[in-house]
């Protein structure tokens, strides 16, 4: 395999593997938030805003993987 092919493979693997963790994390966060809203429907607003913040923080890990994939495919 050529160097270019290896770099492209690395970029694809970086974002593909890096998306697994945040995907699971956001799924867990949303499921717990839904459970909490189901138990106390009156706290929906507070739970929703905190959940979106937490999901954004978890998503950042995928974004780091994305930035690395970008650096691999555009800069290297």
């Amino acid at each position: 395999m050529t160097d270019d092919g290896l770099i492209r493979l690395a970029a694809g693997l970086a974002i593909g593997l890096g998306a697994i963790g945040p995907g699971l994390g956001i799924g867990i966060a949303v499921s717990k938030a839904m459970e909490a809203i189901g138990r106390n429907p009156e706290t929906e607003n507070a739970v929703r805003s905190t959940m979106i913040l937490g999901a954004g923080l978890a998503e950042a890990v995928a974004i780091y993987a994305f930035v690395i994939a970008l650096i691999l495919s555009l800069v290297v």
Partner: protein
Amino acid sequence: MSIHAVMAPDVLFHIGPFVVTNSMLTAWVVMIFLVGVSLLATRRMSVVPESRLQNLMELIVEFLLDLAEKTAGSQVGRRVFPLVATLFIFILTANWFGILPGVGTIKLVDPHHPEHAAPLFRAATSDLNMTIAMALIVIVIVQVLGVTTNGVRGYLRELSTPLLLTPIHLIGELSHVISLSARLFGNIFGGEVLLAVMFALVPYFVPVVFMGLEMFFGFIQALIFSVLAIVYISLAASGHGSEEHAGAH
């Protein structure tokens, strides 16, 4: 199918030794817009707002003040509010400016090299230089506050509480810069690439959905950046409490 995606912003022209890139130009346009709107909104202020613009601005400022006071307590919250509100409003406007038509599509063609066309505007936050600069502002303030509240000796003691972990503490402080800047940059730049791909695949109607998504993400990222800035600054300003706080979060 060619998608214009480069990490480094394109250079438009030079002023003396300084390079002016398209993201810098957009940042200046955003700043002029914000200053103009603020001047308009505060021109005829009244205790009970009469103009709708003043009402809107008060809504935004009250939302941010509430956020700062809820996250950092009323005393520290009021102290960090001006910086954090400025960051939030600037990041939000810069993020949303990137979705406007014309940003990224109006190209400046160099007459000597007709094959090289640089976009005239590029969202300011989709440039890593901009986000790193903002993250550095926050982190420098955090370090300065850490020194002023604990004193130089207390600050150094906190950095080297278990002596073996000093390098880990240092890396931890430095990694805030990377995490703050890469999160914002990756989200906005990734959103632009996603929009470009969508425009290339389905040119009509479908990209509107993703533009809405980008507006939502732009708001969320501005919120996350400013909330994290509040948290970091309030941890540094609350004196000797960073260990207990770190355990609580």
